[in-house]
């Protein structure tokens, strides 16, 4: 007798595809948030499968902090072309120019927090009623209770006490006008699952994820890459190191890891042996123990 078993990656894949299709079916005007990071790359890969051979029934939205790694933008543009997707860009610089937000100052200045306003503005401007993000529950404590379908009020805020119970595969995306949903198709994936799936599916990844030489500064244990957005303070200096990135975000706050992992297999071995959660290398989470939770309430990804 044949065995009717899916391995864990195929089961996660089936679940995520189901969720993405559910979004297309239940919402009028959904969008997929694409950051160029590995999670959103995998989410997009799954979305393409979900509707094959048709094109994606929703556009992609990239929130551009203006502090992106150039590699991220190249990768994004190539991929968008390859799958003939529609790409929208929300610009943090524009939000600053319009006076919607004020640029942070000081050595640790980052645009990560400002993204929230740009995102909410873009959602309002385009009238999106659902925004899919690559968030995973294993990333951070505050995410462990996040739903697949996460309800946001008319201010885009998340109320951890007022989330709908989620039972079986019955996702409830009903809402009042002005409210919207954040959807997390990768909720049940771990960092390891994501890399194993990338290997299994041979998904092409941005070069930033692989070991390379780069000048960095060690700021309280966080290695920041040299760029015009990172200013040295007293006693700090640029040093050439062999590093890679475990997550990719804003150049001003994404920390690198010393690494020689040059293939996906190497990365998997490294993740298996890793001693730090991947968010541990992000300067923005170090600000306070509950910083992720605070940002989520305000409508962060």
């Amino acid at each position, binding site marked *: 007798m044949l065995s009717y078993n899916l391995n864990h990656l195929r089961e996660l894949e089936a679940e995520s595809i189901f969720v993405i299709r559910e979004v297309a079916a239940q919402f009028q005007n959904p969008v997929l948030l694409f950051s160029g990071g590995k999670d959103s790359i995998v989410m997009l890969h799954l979305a393409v499968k979900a509707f094959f051979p048709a*094109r994606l029934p929703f556009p992609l939205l990239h929130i551009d902090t203006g502090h992106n790694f150039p590699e991220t933008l190249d990768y994004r543009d190539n991929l968008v072309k390859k799958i003939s997707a529609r790409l929208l860009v929300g610009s943090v610089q524009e939000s600053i120019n319009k006076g919607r937000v004020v640029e942070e100052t000081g050595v640790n200045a980052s645009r990560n927090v400002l993204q929230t306003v740009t995102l909410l503005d873009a959602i309002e401007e385009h009238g999106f009623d659902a925004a899919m993000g690559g968030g995973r529950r294993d990333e951070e404590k505050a995410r462990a209770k996040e739903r697949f379908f996460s309800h946001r009020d008319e201010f885009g805020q998340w109320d951890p006490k007022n989330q709908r119970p989620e039972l079986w595969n019955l996702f409830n995306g009903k809402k009042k006008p002005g409210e919207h949903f954040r959807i997390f198709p990768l909720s049940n994936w771990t960092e390891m699952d994501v890399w194993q799936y990338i290997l299994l599916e041979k998904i092409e990844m941005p070069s930033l994820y692989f070991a390379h030489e780069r000048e960095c500064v060690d700021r309280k244990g966080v290695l920041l890459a040299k760029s015009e957005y990172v200013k040295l303070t007293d006693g700090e200096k640029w040093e050439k190191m062999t590093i890679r990135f475990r997550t990719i975000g804003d150049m001003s706050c994404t920390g690198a890891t010393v690494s020689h992992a040059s293939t996906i297999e190497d990365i998997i071995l490294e993740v298996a042996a890793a001693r730090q959660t991947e968010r541990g290398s992000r300067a923005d989470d170090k600000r306070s123990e509950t910083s992720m939770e605070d940002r989520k309430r305000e409508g962060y990804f």
Partner: protein
Amino acid sequence: MNRNNGNAYLDMELLRFTTAGSVDDGKSTLIGRLLYDSKSIFEDQYEAIKITSEKRGEDFVNLALLTDGLRAEREQGITIDVAYRYFATPKRKFIIADTPGHVQYTRNMVTGASTANLAIILVDSRKGVVEQTKRHAFIASLLGIPHLVICINKMDLVDYSQKVFESIKKEFQGFASKLNIQDIQFIPISALHGDNVVEKSDKMPWYGGPGLLYLLETIHIGSDLNLVDCRFPVQYVIRPQNDEYHGYRGYAGRIAGGVFKPGDKVMALPSGFTSTIKAIDGPEGPVQEAFAPMSVTIRLDDELDVSRGDMIVRENNRPQTCQDIDIMVCWMNTKKMLPDGKYGIRHTTRDARCIVRKIHYKVDVNTLHRIQDDLDVGMNDIARISIRTTQPFFVDKYQINRNTGSVILIDEATHETLGAGMII
């Protein structure tokens, strides 16, 4: 994992389980222990709880803090909702739906249990089977969880006594014979010291069974899903607007039961039209077989008018088509259920409205007795009710198929999910 067997992860299965226990039975400690001993804890997470433990003046690192969640709970010192945790061994990936054991939180356990293959129920060896143990076992059986593991915890506090273990086991079995659970196992553990959690304990030589992790890694889950009755709720219709795939019309969805193959004679509900499966496209391309829980796209030989909410089944094995349905409902909102109340309802991918026609009885979740003199159904109540829907649903009994036997009730004004229903 090393380079030689870099593909080992391709043989890993997924097991979803839920944990329940009364407050202080040691649930957080147990989960912390599983995560820590299976090396799923990172250094920075461990450092954080070590610091907190020291601040609180505890003389050991409190593993229970690992599963601590939102700020409100940190302040109140309790868990208030379902939180999901992940860990993996070379054999399996595990998803834990961690639900609190508070008296009023039946709703959370029902939510966590709805997707679980297995439930762990903790019993404090000093207290034995208490009301909440019975409640948790009842909910596990109501939600159709196929495997139940009773962990008798804090064995260190009863001198690792076989007598204590056996008497709790016997008492539980007596109660459980009234429930519908296929597979129940008992393990004596100490979550605090790690006995029989990841490593088998040498302090209980009288216990011949497996440690908890070994059991979780090896328990047979291959036949938990219904692979007999073919059910395919149509989720989305794929019709590419490009030249290359002109004329492609595929029905996308997740298989809710059974095995489908190209060449199968099928029927679409509600229309009753029949056709033959031309091809099945999986995420990796065409497949010769598709089974639950795969997400696929089915193409038929004939152009039928099939849309979201319809169901594709085998002609000679159909679900019941009905509008009058009896369900066991777990109520999940502070707003009470109204007799004659009208609600939105979802079953598989099908939406409709329904009216509550009769509330038969409530269940006392601690004693399993029927309550007939108080039919007020409020938050955390479980009741048997009859409803009538505005459109026919294609249903199976929940005990036969959890996917086609479940519904949710939705508030038509606020759109909140109010109740979870299991079709009887």
